[in-house]
């Protein structure tokens, strides 16, 4: 009997904050519309070599071969979802948890300890936040346009050691309105 195939990469879980309350408040049709809007945004941002592993109610499990790509994609996903919210196309907020490590393929699914850790991390993420494990941050290295902010070592259910967590957020770049090469700002 051969061992099941193992793949190493970044595992992301997403979750819509307050989806249950939204269903109750806005109705099932509005909930389905919101899920479809989320799917469109995710499909538009997911790189060709990454994949949607499965849908979990209002949440998604995503897999990326490279951690840096995963971090950049998740931050961009939050940016686009914020834009969709402002445009009235997506009324809710998404939380993202990201981890890096090996997982075992079981059909189209992925299972294993690191998948479980990623699932625990999203539970700790705030609305509109991308929360990464230290393993994901270290595997990603420098990600252009993204900075990591330490938020604490979090004990996770079923995980022996605390998981060090970092918030990945877009770097705010101030641009001189006079254009490039304009020199120092006037006093």
């Amino acid at each position, binding site marked *: 009997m051969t061992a099941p195939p193992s793949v190493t990469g970044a595992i992301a879980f997403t979750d819509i904050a307050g989806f249950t309350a939204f269903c109750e408040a806005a109705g099932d049709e509005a909930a389905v519309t919101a899920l479809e809007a989320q799917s469109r945004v995710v499909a538009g941002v997911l790189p060709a070599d990454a994949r949607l592993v499965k849908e979990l109610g209002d949440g998604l499990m995503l897999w990326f071969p490279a951690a840096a790509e995963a971090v950049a994609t998740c931050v961009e996903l939050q940016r686009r979802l914020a834009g969709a919210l402002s445009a009235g196309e997506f009324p809710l907020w998404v939380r993202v948890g990201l981890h890096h490590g090996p997982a075992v393929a079981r059909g189209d699914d992925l299972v294993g300890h690191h998948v479980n850790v990623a699932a625990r991390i999203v539970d700790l993420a705030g609305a509109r936040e991308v929360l990464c494990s230290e393993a994901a941050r270290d595997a990603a290295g420098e990600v252009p346009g993204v900075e990591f902010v330490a938020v604490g070592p979090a004990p996770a259910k079923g995980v022996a050691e605390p998981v*060090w*967590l970092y918030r990945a957020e877009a770097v705010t770049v101030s641009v001189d309105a006079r254009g490039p090469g304009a020199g120092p700002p006037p006093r």
Partner: protein
Amino acid sequence: MRISSRSGRVDVTAEPRADVLVERGPAPVIEPGRPVTVVGRDERLVVRVPVGVDLVIGTGSGRVTVRGSLGAVAVTTSSGRVEVDRAQRVDVRVRSAGVSVGEVDGEARVDTLSGRAQVGRAGSAHLSTVSGRIVIGHCVGRLRARTVSGRIEARVDGPAPDVDVETVSGRVDVRMHPGVHPRVEVSTVTGRVHHDLPVGDDGRVAARTVTGSVWVTAGAAP
């Protein structure tokens, strides 16, 4: 500096000193180029640190108390109460614990699932709760507040507000600096958005709700 504990209480005091003293708990791990780290299990940790130091704390269920004036403070816990006196920046993430933050020069960021969080004063605030309650006494700069079914109350000072508040079915109550004339953008599906502000170009106030209620008014603190 980093402190982690599975379930023990964590007490940190910032005071005029140059070193880190662990009064109770395991000795700190000091490695060149890395933050000083204290790793506890289930015991109480009592630590004294220099004023202004940056601090990252994580616990499973222990209470966290931070006294004195710190730099950037980040606390993650599932169910222990969190108290922070004063810091340059604060980032508190709890599931069901109570949170009390005194004064924050920069951004106060609070994420809760449930429970009550109180921030006395902050340079700017980023508040999020699913079903809990968050109250901020004074927010000088930018305010971002989101709740699913909980309640957020904030007073925003300053002549040019930058406010963005959202709720699904909860309630957000923002009191603005009297005399301010911001641009106001509101939207709701079947909820209520009320504002009595004179409109102008003094900054921006945006409020959205699905079925909840958002109140943006000029006047006294909530």
